[in-house]
């Protein structure tokens, strides 16, 4: 079924890893504060109940469950229940459109889909109150023996499909336990990134459960709510987020001392020096940095903010630069289906990040992307996926999508095409974070003398304003 030689050797059908690795510790220990505490015993009971519902919907060991849930207790419970049922979890960002989800489901053939029937809790929630529904979908086994399947915006197809085994996830959590600067047992992790994506999933949820770190999502996405979450207890608090969250905190008035604030760690793109300074001046705590990818999880860190912009490879991870591109050790291909040798070959993941590895210190410095991938609030978006989607819309003759301080689409219509129609069609096909912030309709897109579309931001800007 796929080109991944080792995927069948994984232990996805052995559900014991959930209890042995994630549910260790005292049942009375608090694992979540929402803000009401949820202890391990309660979580275990909810997971066991969810297993019954999944089974009733047709899930069998070796099957798959698609989770189309926002970050929520329902998501955590059904993720763990899926794994404890010996099944594969397909994680679908709740912002994906029906169009994107249908395409994924047809390919990945889950036996059940879990989606919200009702959500609540107010606007800008980090953790959503969800009443979920479990719907039978198919009766085929999972396409591979991976424990988790994630979609990443892709440059060629609709999306890259990435699989990781239970052993991969356990190994990544163990890497976190060896890092100096992560939240320690008994401490708190103020969790901002979505647990549907790798940073929040492994660095937050799985590490927290394994290590006995309390997971505390702020009541909502605002600087004041994050500070409230930090100040809600005396135990040391580490804030995990993406660069957007640094700006949010730096723009918040600090109205009380927060001696328990230990550190902030962000993944995603590099943070400008001015942002670092405004944050550290205000809070006086280290601002750590992490580098990782959905395919392998955490690759390197600078959790004390001492090596910026460099990072130290995580334990057990080898990084090398080949022809200016960073490659990361990754024994098996993480991709489902045919593996593009320009993405993974012979035990190395080709990151498509430009970078260098210092031969003396081993420090890795990332110097930007070598392809059309951009980061929107920590979410990776491949501009080629956006461009292909725009170009395939009815009424569009040609399109160029570029990054101009935001995703910007230049569109040449076939005849008359209202911007509103274009907006509406895109909203049906692309998740909100992938959609262009700026749309420019041009009678003729700029082309080279040989008729190729011009991609220069400057030229397009000029054409768009003339």
């Amino acid at each position: 079924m796929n080109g991944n030689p080792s995927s069948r050797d994984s232990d996805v059908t052995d559900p014991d890893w959930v209890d042995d690795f994630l549910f260790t510790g005292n049942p009375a220990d608090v694992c979540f504060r929402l803000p009401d505490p949820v202890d391990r015993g309660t979580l275990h009971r909810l997971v066991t109940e969810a297993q019954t519902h999944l089974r009733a919907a047709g899930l069998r060991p070796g099957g798959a469950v698609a989770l189309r849930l926002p970050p929520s207790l329902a998501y955590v419970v059904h993720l763990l229940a899926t794994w404890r049922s010996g099944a594969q979890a397909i994680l679908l960002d709740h912002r994906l459109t029906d169009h994107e989800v249908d395409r994924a489901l047809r390919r990945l053939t889950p036996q059940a889909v879990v989606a919200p029937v009702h959500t609540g809790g107010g606007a800008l929630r980090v953790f959503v109150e969800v009443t979920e529904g479990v719907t039978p979908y198919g009766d085929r086994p999972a396409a591979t023996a991976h424990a988790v399947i994630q979609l990443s915006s892709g440059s060629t197809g609709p999306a890259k499909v990435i699989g990781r085994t239970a052993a991969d996830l356990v190994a990544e959590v163990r890497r976190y336990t060896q890092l100096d600067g992560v939240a320690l047992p008994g401490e708190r992790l103020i969790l901002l990134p979505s647990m549907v994506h790798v940073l929040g999933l492994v660095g937050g949820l799985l590490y927290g459960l394994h290590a006995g770190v309390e997971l505390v999502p702020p009541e909502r996405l605002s600087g004041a709510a994050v500070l409230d979450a930090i100040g809600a207890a005396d135990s040391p608090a580490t804030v995990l987020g993406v660069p957007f969250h640094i700006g949010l905190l730096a723009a918040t008035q600090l109205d009380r001392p927060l001696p328990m604030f230990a550190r902030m760690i962000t993944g995603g793109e590099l943070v400008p020096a001015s942002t670092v300074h405004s944050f550290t001046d205000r809070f006086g705590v280290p601002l750590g940095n992490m580098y990782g990818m959905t395919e392998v999880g955490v690759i390197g860190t600078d959790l004390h903010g001492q090596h910026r912009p460099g990072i130290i490879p995580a334990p057990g991870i080898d990084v090398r630069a080949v022809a200016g591109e960073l490659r990361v050790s990754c024994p098996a291909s993480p991709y489902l289906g045919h593996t593009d040798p320009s993405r993974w070959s012979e035990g190395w993941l080709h990151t498509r990040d430009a970078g260098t590895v210092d031969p003396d210190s081993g420090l890795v410095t990332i110097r930007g992307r070598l392809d059309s991938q951009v980061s929107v609030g920590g979410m990776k978006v491949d501009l080629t996926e956006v461009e292909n989607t725009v170009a395939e819309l009815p009424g569009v003759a040609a399109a160029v999508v570029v990054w101009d301080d935001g995703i910007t689409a230049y569109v040449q219509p076939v005849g008359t095409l209202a911007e509103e129609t274009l907006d509406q069609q895109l909203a049906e096909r692309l998740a909100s974070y992938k959609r262009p912030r700026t749309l420019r309709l041009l009678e003729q897109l700029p082309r080279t003398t040989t008729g190729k579309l011009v991609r220069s931001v400057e030229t397009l800007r000029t054409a768009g304003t003339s």
Partner: protein
Amino acid sequence: MAGQPDLGRGDLVAMLAQLTHRSTDQPDRIGSMELAWLVHMVEQRYGRRLDLTDDQLAGIRTVDDALVIFQNALAAADG
């Protein structure tokens, strides 16, 4: 000026400029991240929480949409 709904479009554009580090030419369309930023900045400016629902936020697609919702929320809080 705290407590007065004197919020204008130019204020929101200036707030967005702080996020994007662009001085001018802010895009009209705003996504969930920009929206969270604007809510945060308006709340910081007025020192109060905007009482908004998910449905209200979901209906905001542009800076102008956001302005109407924020002005109403501020006026409601004053009332």
